[in-house]
């Protein structure tokens, strides 16, 4: 009966399986480094399989908080703790990906992502899997003074990452920044099917969950509504502990295998395990259930609708840029290297409505990968290209 139910759920709603062979970009919004494994693990496992087996799929993890759990009056951010959780999360990704393709090296760097202002964000890549760590403060059930929810509700004016790498000035700044990540990663495949997975923000559907989870789900849903091309699956969290199992044995194994990597990342670094099946509603009791709903489906396809276009790519010593200003306004186009350092300002002026084309001389710049960030009368675009 359990298997039947599980198959039914998979056939009906599972974005992680039904479209495993499709041209898919799958986002997992995770408030803490150990959330997606426990609550969205089966879908993520199958998406990582797809991304590791071919070049036609991509998985992107967006971790909103550092998960430092610096709660109840603590004043010093425990960097070792959140790095341990981060290591555990990365172990989950690597373990799962290496099942399907040979082991590879991780690449690590800070990338500059524009929001209202520019933000340096830690990016780790493993094969076709990309992880962004925003490292916002862990809300600790709203015990800490600065949280994502407070930023969203206008109770604080700004929010600084726990590693002080950047500050978001207003919720809009955060939304636009993460939206640009979604836009950029969705542009890496041609006409992809885009899925956004996150915690359910609706307390009536997902009661008793961590406020960071719900706020991250809210952020993800708002971004999906803005871009229009993403399907959204929203997952229940803590309260599923008391719900019946709805996974097949091999799916339980998937989720448990992912969570065990998180647990090992913690204990290896001297912290208590999160492998705690004995306690009531311990983490392991979440590994045999995933409850979620499809909140919305894409209203538009993610196609080449950018108002900023670049060719050729790869490029020689010249790149051609074309952009359309639909409603007159300021235009800035900036060239960044892959470390997020600004190399040149290509355009910075007010433009009237119209289509503009231009050529830009790349001769002074070394061969390698670059990012063009464009702000076209309020629309933000990020294009990646290679100079040969």
């Amino acid at each position, binding site marked *: 009966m359990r298997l039947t139910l599980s198959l039914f759920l998979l056939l009906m709603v599972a974005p992680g399986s039904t479209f495993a062979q499709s041209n898919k970009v799958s986002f997992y919004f995770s408030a803490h480094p150990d959330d997606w494994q426990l609550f969205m693990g089966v879908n993520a496992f199958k998406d990582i399989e797809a991304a590791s087996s071919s070049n036609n799929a991509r998985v992107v993890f967006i971790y909103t908080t550092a998960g430092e759990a610096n709660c109840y009056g603590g004043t010093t951010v425990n960097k070792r703790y959140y790095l341990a959780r981060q290591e555990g999360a990365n172990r989950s990704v690597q373990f799962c990906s*290496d099942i399907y393709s040979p082991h590879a090296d991780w690449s690590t760097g800070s990338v500059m992502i524009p929001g209202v202002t520019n933000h340096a964000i830690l990016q780790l890549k493993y094969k076709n899997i990309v992880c962004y760590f925003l490292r916002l403060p862990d809300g600790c059930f709203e015990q800490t003074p600065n949280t994502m929810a407070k930023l969203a509700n206008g109770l604080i004016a700004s929010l600084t990452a726990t590693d002080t790498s950047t500050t978001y000035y207003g919720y809009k700044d955060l939304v636009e920044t993460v939206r640009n990540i979604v836009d950029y990663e969705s542009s890496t495949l041609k006409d992809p099917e885009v899925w956004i997975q996150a915690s359910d923000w609706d307390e009536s559907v997902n009661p008793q969950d961590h406020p960071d989870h719900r706020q991250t789900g809210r952020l993800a849903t708002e971004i999906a509504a803005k871009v229009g091309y993403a399907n959204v699956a929203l997952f229940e969290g803590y309260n599923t502990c008391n719900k019946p199992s709805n*996974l097949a044995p091999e799916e339980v194994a998937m989720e448990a295998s992912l969570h065990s990597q998180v647990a090992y990342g913690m*204990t290896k*670094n001297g912290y208590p395990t999160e492998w705690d099946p004995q306690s009531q509603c311990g983490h392991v009791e979440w590994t045999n259930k995933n409850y979620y709903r499809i909140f919305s489906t894409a209203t538009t396809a993610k196609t080449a609708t950018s108002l900023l276009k670049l060719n050729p790519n790869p490029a020689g010593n010249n790149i051609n840029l074309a952009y359309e200003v639909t409603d007159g306004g300021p235009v800035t186009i900036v060239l960044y290297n892959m470390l997020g350092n600004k190399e040149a300002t290509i355009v910075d002026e007010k433009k009237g409505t119209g289509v503009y084309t231009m050529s830009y001389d790349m001769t002074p710049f070394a061969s390698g990968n670059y990012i063009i960030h464009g702000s076209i009368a309020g629309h933000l675009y990020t294009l990646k290209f290679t100079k040969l």
Partner: protein
Amino acid sequence: MRKIALILLLLALNQKGYSQYDRVSFYVVAHPDQWQLFMGLNASDDLSTPDDAIKSKVVFIYTTAGDQSCNGSPCNTPHYLARQEAAHTAIEFCSDRTRDHGQWHTSHDVVNGHTILKYNYNNAVSYCLRLPDGCNGNSLFKESLQSLHSGNSSISAIDSSATYHDWNDLITTVQQIMTNERSNIGDMYVNTADTDAVLNKGDDPDHIYTGLLCLNALDSMHHLTINLFREAIIASLPANTDDIAIAAKAALLSQMDYVRTENGMPSEWTPQNISYLSRNYLRTVTR
């Protein structure tokens, strides 16, 4: 005065062979990934039992190196070292659930005149005899537990650390490891592959002959519980464990697989191994 009393107490305890453990569990296996897949529930519990409940020591005896130098392929040292590291990571994962993360200590014990590689980690001890992987009779080294049992030849560790002249030599060695590790611990449990050809049909000969070796070594030992595990055949038997048990074995396989793949070996997250995760079949003999 109190110091003198304490010293006298310690001397008395030493005289009686006092052990800090209440229970010792042995896992006598052929390959580094065997106990996790077939005996993983027992091992996981034994390794993670909190000291304030029962002080539990867990001893792993790996008979072969698990080198898989089969069908003419050369001996791949990184391969068996990766498998060994994978087994160690599985031990860490379990032991660390109820203890601080520890340090591994490596030594070479001389047992019955043979030098044997030994690792200690928290409450776990591992002996690696590193005999050749039998490869169903196709070992590069032309030696196996099965051939030793048949009386055909001696057998040497693939790292040349020891040579066992006959089956009895090997039995005596394993017996002495068990005797030393048991010391005067009251509760003793032994876990190994079932040697019954019907119950454990189709198992790897290395597993079967390691099970036989274990039972032979236990011939003169008493007051113990022996768990005999059915292995490869369980893939064809009905699933018989709950989700928490599946999770426990999945965690062990996951930990091993991470190390394997990181060392360039193919994943063992295979349908066959996954089928073992929801199955646990054993019979228990007490004497």
